[in-house]
């Protein structure tokens, strides 16, 4: 198999090793995928002062997500200034797989994160209490960082309209 399987075996062996292993940090996700923990979203936002961007929450097991992500990939190709941050709600063990899929959607160059908490509820508590885990979930940040979040696949026309209004 590939590196993903290797990551899983690493995780498995860490679990096997017992308390010492549990005390050590979780396996590092793929290089380009950062672990999302408490406070990560604030960092994502703070790194974009005065800029509009989209945070796209998705997972490798979400059947609806590819539809929207492919559209975002195509829009990114046409509008290189479009800033999409991908956040997978999987675990760090799935980071490599998530990165491969993202590349397939044309979003290989997008900033990527993966949930790195015991349970997704821990991160959702600070991301948005009106989000119940349904996917995809798309958060639109305007230049003032006012947020509008949408559950489910966002139609391409709506994405296009947002880009026209927010992307230089």
């Amino acid at each position: 198999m590939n590196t993903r399987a290797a990551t899983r075996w690493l995780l498995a062996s860490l679990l096997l090793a017992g308390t010492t292993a549990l005390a050590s940090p979780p396996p590092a996700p793929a290089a380009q995928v950062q672990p999302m923990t408490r406070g990560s979203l604030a960092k994502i936002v703070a790194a974009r002062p005065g800029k509009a961007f989209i945070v796209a929450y998705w997972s490798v097991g979400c059947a609806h997500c590819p539809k929207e992500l492919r559209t975002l990939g195509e829009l990114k190709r046409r509008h290189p200034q479009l800033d999409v941050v991908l956040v997978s709600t999987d675990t760090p063990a799935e980071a490599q797989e998530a990165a491969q899929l993202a590349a397939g959607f044309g979003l290989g160059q997008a900033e990527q994160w993966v949930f790195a908490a015991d349970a997704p509820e821990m991160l959702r508590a600070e991301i948005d209490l009106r989000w119940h885990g349904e996917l995809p979930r798309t958060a639109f940040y305007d230049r003032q960082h006012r947020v509008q979040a949408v559950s489910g696949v966002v139609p391409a026309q709506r994405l296009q309209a947002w880009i026209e209004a927010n992307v230089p």
Partner: protein
Amino acid sequence: MTMRAHWLALFAAIALPGVAAAADGMAPSAAAMPHAHASSLAVSVTADAEGGLWLARVQDGQVRVSRSVDGGRHFGDETVVNAVAENVRAEGQNRPQLAVHGERVAVAWSQALAKRFSGHVRFARSIDGGRSFLPPVTINDDLQEIGHGFTAMAMHDDGRLAIAWLDSRDSTAARSAGKEWTGSSLYYVQSADGGATFSPNTRLAAHTCQCCRIAIDFAPDGVAVALWRHVFGTDTRDFAMARLAPGSRIVRASEDGWHIDGCPHHGGALHVDARGRRHLAWFTGGGEQPGLYYRRADGKRMTRPMAFGDGGAQAGHPAVFSRGDDVWLAWREYADNTFRLQVMESRDGGRKWSTPSTLASATGNTDLPLFVTGTGEPLLYWNTPASGLQLFRLEARP
């Protein structure tokens, strides 16, 4: 353990070996290999007529069952159900199913195949009281590498079995023919001989949601009833229910109006009481007040949905159980970096309700709360890495 006096904690926690902290509610990657030596957080518990409790869990791609004769304090040696390991799905919406009738032990599960979102519905049975299992069989007669999963199984008091699952054969066929198709389909089989033979694969409903657990329970007339998240119109993912019988009418079970072209990963709960009344609990993200709801359906009459749970604490994943006019609701909330197991009860068939109580809490990840099947007693279970499997006997408030 903190709780109010009217809830009786029946058993101490049972530590399960090597529980993996896997995120629940998300379908695992289809291509994923089983986590070596990692035990699933998602487990199932059922009771037999002798008062024994049976536990099914997944480790190393194998379903393992064990029995407790002391009310769940200890479970005996495990029997491996599938000798050949496979990628057994074990998460919140998709866990191994277990039922026991005399010497017959029935286990059903969803197997993930290499292709994303694909799988098979698997079944294995024991005819020697769980000491050994016959080789597993695949229940879905469509063997394409496409979606067959979210397996749900129920057993009637007389040993009859019903298995329902979400199946993408119809959507696959439609797309192959260049047609549009919304959602998945719900298929089922039944067995009158404990799983030695099954009725043909039968479609109960077309256009179901693709990613929410199905709730299934037998009515006293011997016909099973299913509750599932359906797709009404183009993208309204509200609940529907129907009897698992030929020509069955599909009844809309909720009118929440949750318009979403996406995966809620949040199935409902159903308990049919001894008078045939259906108690329903579910989550919706739509309408003016998203959250948890309960309603009762007596034939065609349905009560007005009652909201419950703290929406500000991510209340979700309900379970429901009834005995006579007593009804219990259990669900999970998350606040202050802690999951809490919430319970409330009604003494009048679901009209008036107690205030919610916190039965247990846990840091780290947790399984969903579920009621033990196969018993008329309100036994609630909750599996957490921190405290192991906890069982609670809920008592009606005096």
